[in-house]
């Protein structure tokens, strides 16, 4: 069981993800440089946060053409586990591995703060150890987190229970006040049809140790490791 953390020029949460997987979850983990054409037999891939290629053109727009992303796409389409965090979520949307797009925050400001998200479905490898409706306190740090998709796709995401995290208040109510960036239907994270690819704007890797103010983010990694062990 090996994890791979993709590194683009401009990734800046790669070491955080590596640390959580290697030191906190005690799993084998390796970095995968963006020019790599293969995934070094990794069993799960993390696309970390940051500003891949400076976010030039659009967030994730250049990164998706990296050699490593061709390998990640192939891996994801054959059922491989791929987790995109923040900029990684944006890259996965641009690459067409997840539907929709992440637009400029409605308030036009970069937002860096702790928020609450509600686990909407436990039917993914990334949330299987959580309880449905569980509220996680995790940080966000982004300028483009305003999730958008057209209405037919939104209806489909709802019908197929592919909205995995919604922004909410501390009590777990998905209110307008609990929505930091204007995201459609308070969407903070979604998965693909096969439920093996997940993207979310919050940073679970920044809230996986008590010293960091919250361990709620570790629920995601704990779920993933558990799901992989059972495979």
């Amino acid at each position, binding site marked *: 069981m090996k994890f791979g953390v993709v590194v683009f020029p401009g990734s800046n949460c790669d070491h955080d993800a590596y640390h959580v997987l290697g030191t906190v979850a005690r799993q084998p983990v390796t970095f995968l440089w963006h020019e790599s054409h293969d995934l070094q037999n990794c069993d799960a891939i993390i696309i970390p946060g940051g500003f891949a290629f400076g976010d030039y053109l659009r967030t994730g727009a250049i990164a998706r053409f990296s050699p490593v992303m061709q390998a990640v796409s192939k891996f994801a389409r054959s059922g491989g586990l791929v987790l995109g965090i923040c900029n990684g979520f944006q890259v996965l949307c641009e690459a067409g591995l997840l539907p929709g797009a992440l637009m400029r925050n409605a308030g*036009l400001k970069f937002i860096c703060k702790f928020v609450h998200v509600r686990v909407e479905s436990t039917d993914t490898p990334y949330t299987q150890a959580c309880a449905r409706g569980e509220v996680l306190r995790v940080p966000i740090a982004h300028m483009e987190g305003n999730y958008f998709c057209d209405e037919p796709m939104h209806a489909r995401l709802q019908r197929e229970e592919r909205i995995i995290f919604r922004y909410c208040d501390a009590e777990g109510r998905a209110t307008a006040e609990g929505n930091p960036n*204007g995201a459609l239907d308070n969407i903070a994270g979604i998965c693909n049809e096969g439920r093996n690819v997940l993207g979310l704007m919050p940073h679970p890797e920044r809230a996986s140790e008590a010293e960091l103010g919250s361990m709620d983010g570790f629920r995601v990694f704990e779920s993933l490791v558990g799901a992989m062990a059972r495979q």
Partner: protein
Amino acid sequence: MKAYVYVSLKKSVLDPQGKTIQGALKKMGYADIGEVRQGKYFEITLGGDLQQEQASAEIERIAREVLTNPVIEEFRYRLEQPD
């Protein structure tokens, strides 16, 4: 050959930057300002001796594949033969 490509958000997509600019213009006293939409603009020089038709096909492909995110954006362009 030179291509001028304009990328804008689809009509169905809210443009908070355009809205902010519109608000600022109104505050400045430009009373007749209607909707403002912000977009992106690219100038692309095409090498070789591409015919108009090939150049169009190439630019459309580039615009669809790279310059726009079709979920939220649309584009238009014009080609010009420099003097």
